[in-house]
């Protein structure tokens, strides 16, 4: 059993407006291959950065699970055959799932802090910059 992180890009129109049915396709697939799912998230229907198989929009499903390594190839194969799944990315994690989630949460928090501090610094710089120009003019005199 290894920890995996997988993201599936699902066709939003295949099951009409029924989002639960689309989710079920993926969760059934994972179950079939003996995956022990610890987290299953559905992201909002969003615009793709580029067209995939003629689709401009897609639903992202993120799953964190444990699965025997031997089943990986068959899971990938089944995803390829499935018409609802447009694209999938299955990654083996270096750490166990709780540690990974912790690290991700930490990353989110730290990047947000960094962004805020950068914004504050820039604002300060701008305010000071204006003063600086005035200073420069007075020194020139």
């Amino acid at each position, binding site marked *: 059993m290894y920890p995996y992180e997988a*993201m599936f*890009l699902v066709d939003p129109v295949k099951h009409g407006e029924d989002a639960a049915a689309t989710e079920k396709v993926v969760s059934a697939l994972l179950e079939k291959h003996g995956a022990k799912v610890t987290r299953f998230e559905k992201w909002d229907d969003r615009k*793709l*950065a*580029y067209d*995939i198989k003629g689709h401009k929009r*897609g639903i*992202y499903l*993120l799953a964190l699970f444990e699965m025997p390594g031997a089943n990986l190839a068959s899971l990938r194969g089944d995803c390829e055959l499935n018409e609802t799944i447009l*694209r999938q*990315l299955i*990654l083996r994690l270096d750490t166990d799932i709780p540690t990974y989630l912790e*690290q*991700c949460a*930490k*990353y*989110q928090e*730290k*990047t947000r*802090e*960094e962004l805020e501090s950068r914004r504050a610094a820039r604002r300060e710089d701008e305010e*000071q910059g204006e003063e*600086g120009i005035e*200073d*420069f003019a*007075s*020194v020139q005199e």
Partner: protein
Amino acid sequence: MREKREKREKRDKKKFKRFQARTCRFERMGVELIDWKDVATLQRLCTGQSMVLARKRSGTSALFQRKVKEAIKRARFMALIPYEGS
């Protein structure tokens, strides 16, 4: 006179600040990984044409630049960020 000198010193200090050696933002944050699902951060590590920012420009350390590269490639594959163009 003294006032002028103080002003000049203040200005030079500000000038110098611009050329201060930068440290890697991720090392400063103390994170272990680059989350490839965090689109907003990855986009700030790309140019307007979605090319990966050079280390020289972003100030990222070698270790984290490799992680950044991996994260951007994963996000591109899942169509979270574009391969080219904006």
